[in-house]
C-alpha cells in the first residue's frame, strides 16, 4: 500500500497553486482532505508526480452566511459543517447530509470541495448541491468563473472543471421550508445504495415548490425536475409521492454492482425518496 513517489508542494496562496498546475499540467493534482485521492494513490490507480496540498490556503477556509446566502470554502470539512450552529439553523440539510458521510475520522478530513469536485457518483454533496441549485466557484489561469451544480457533472469523475482550475467555494441561497437527506447504505462508511436530497416549500397547505436530487443512481448525481414538479400543487399525499417516485425512476440509470442488481437499486431508490419526501413535508 505504498504509492508511487511524488514531489510535494504546499503553496501558501492560490496564485502559487495555479502556477504549479500550469507548470506540471497532467502530472499535478491538488489534495484537500485526501480521503478519496490517497486511497487511489496507495492502490496505484492514481499516479500523481506532483501533489499540491491546499492546506495552507486560508482563503479556501470558512463558512460565510449573509441572510440566506451561504458560501462554503472548498476546505471546509464535514466536521466543520456539523460543528457550525449558525449553518445548522440556516441550512440544516447540510448537517443532516454531512452526518451520513463516512465516519468521524473521515469527516474531520473530508472537505466539501473535495466531495463536490471529485465527480465520484457515490459522493453525497453533489446531489445535495443540485437539490439546492448551488453555484460552484472555480479559479483558473484566466480568472474566476461560476458553474451551476446542475450543469457541473458530465460523467463519473468528469466535471465542468478544467485541469488547470481549482474549485474554491460553493454558494447557495438556503431554502426555507422542509428538507431531508435520506441515505441507504450497507454499513457506516459505505457509499449510498441510494440517497435522496429533498426540499419542499409549503403554502396554503400545498406544495408550493419542491426540489429532488438522487445520489449514486447514475454516473452523475440526478436532479429530477419532473419528480419535484409532480409534488407541486398537491397536498403531498400518497398519490403525489407515488407520482414523484415514478418520475424520479424515469430519470435515474443505476448499474449493477456489489450493492445489488438494478431492480433492487430502483426499489431502494423509491423507498428512500418516499421517506425523504415524507420527512421534508413534515418539516415544511
Amino acid at each position, binding site marked *: *500500500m505504498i504509492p508511487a513517489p511524488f*514531489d510535494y508542494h*504546499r503553496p501558501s496562496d492560490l496564485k502559487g497553486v495555479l502556477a504549479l498546475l500550469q507548470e506540471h499540467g497532467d502530472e499535478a493534482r491538488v489534495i484537500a482532505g485526501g480521503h478519496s485521492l*490517497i486511497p487511489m494513490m496507495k492502490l496505484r490507480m492514481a499516479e500523481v508526480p506532483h501533489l499540491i496540498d491546499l492546506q495552507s490556503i486560508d482563503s479556501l477556509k470558512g463558512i460565510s452566511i449573509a441572510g440566506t446566502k451561504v458560501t462554503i470554502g472548498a476546505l471546509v470539512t464535514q466536521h466543520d459543517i456539523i460543528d457550525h450552529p449558525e449553518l445548522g439553523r440556516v441550512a440544516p440539510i447540510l448537517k443532516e447530509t454531512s452526518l451520513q458521510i463516512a465516519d468521524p*475520522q473521515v469527516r474531520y478530513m473530508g472537505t466539501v470541495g473535495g466531495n463536490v469536485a471529485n465527480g465520484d457518483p457515490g459522493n453525497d454533496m453533489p446531489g445535495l448541491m443540485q437539490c439546492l441549485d448551488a453555484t460552484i466557484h472555480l479559479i483558473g489561469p484566466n480568472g474566476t468563473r461560476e458553474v451551476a451544480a446542475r450543469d457541473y457533472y458530465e460523467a463519473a469523475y468528469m466535471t465542468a472543471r478544467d485541469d488547470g482550475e481549482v474549485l474554491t467555494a460553493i454558494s447557495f441561497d438556503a431554502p426555507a421550508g422542509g428538507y431531508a437527506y435520506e441515505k441507504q447504505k450497507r454499513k457506516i462508511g459505505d457509499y449510498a445504495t441510494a440517497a435522496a436530497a429533498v426540499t419542499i416549500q409549503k403554502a396554503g397547505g400545498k406544495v408550493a415548490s419542491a426540489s429532488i436530487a438522487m445520489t449514486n443512481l447514475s454516473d452523475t448525481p440526478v436532479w429530477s425536475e419532473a419528480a419535484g414538479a409532480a409534488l407541486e400543487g398537491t397536498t403531498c399525499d400518497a398519490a403525489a409521492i407515488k407520482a414523484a417516485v415514478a418520475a424520479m425512476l424515469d430519470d435515474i440509470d443505476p448499474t449493477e454492482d456489489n450493492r445489488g442488481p438494478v431492480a433492487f437499486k430502483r426499489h431502494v431508490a423509491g423507498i428512500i425518496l418516499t421517506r425523504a419526501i415524507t420527512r421534508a413535508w413534515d418539516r415544511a
Partner: protein
Amino acid sequence: MSNKMHINLTVNGEAHEFLAEPRELLIYTLRERLNITGPHIGCETSHCGACTVTLNGKSVKACTMFIAQANGADVTTIEGIGSPDNLHVLQKSFREHHGLQCGYCTPGMITRASKLLEENPNPTEEEVRFGMAGNMCRCTGYQNIVKSILAAASEMNAAKEAAE
C-alpha cells in the same frame, strides 16, 4: 523526483526532525521510524480505525495521511494518553469493563474515545456508538467497549464535579 523532505513532527509532546520521502504514511513514520507502536495497522485502507491518532486536535487515521501533509503537526498517540504506571481513566475503564478481547483495536478505540469525550463529555449510548463508528473491533466486542466509554465519561464527570 521524490526528494526527501525535511519534516518536523511533534509526537506526545516530543519534537522530532528527520528526512523522509513525502509519500511515507504517517502510520509508518510513527511505528517504524519513531518506534511508537501503539497505533496499529489493521486494514491500511482507512476502514478500521486501528491506526487512529489525534493530529492537531482531530481524530485521524494515520494510514491515510502522507508525512508531508503532517509536516509541522502535533500528534498524540495512545502512548501520550496514559502509561502503564499512570493509566488514563479510559484505559482503567476498558480494563474494568472488559472493553477489549484480543486488544488489537484498543489503542485506536481509546485514542478516538478520548477525543469524543473531549468534544462531548456526557454522551448518550447512541452518541458513543455514532462517535466510535470509525473504529472496528473484529472480536465484535462493541457492547463492552461502549460500556467502558460510558463508564469513563461518568467517572471523568464525577471527578470534575468533585474538583469544582
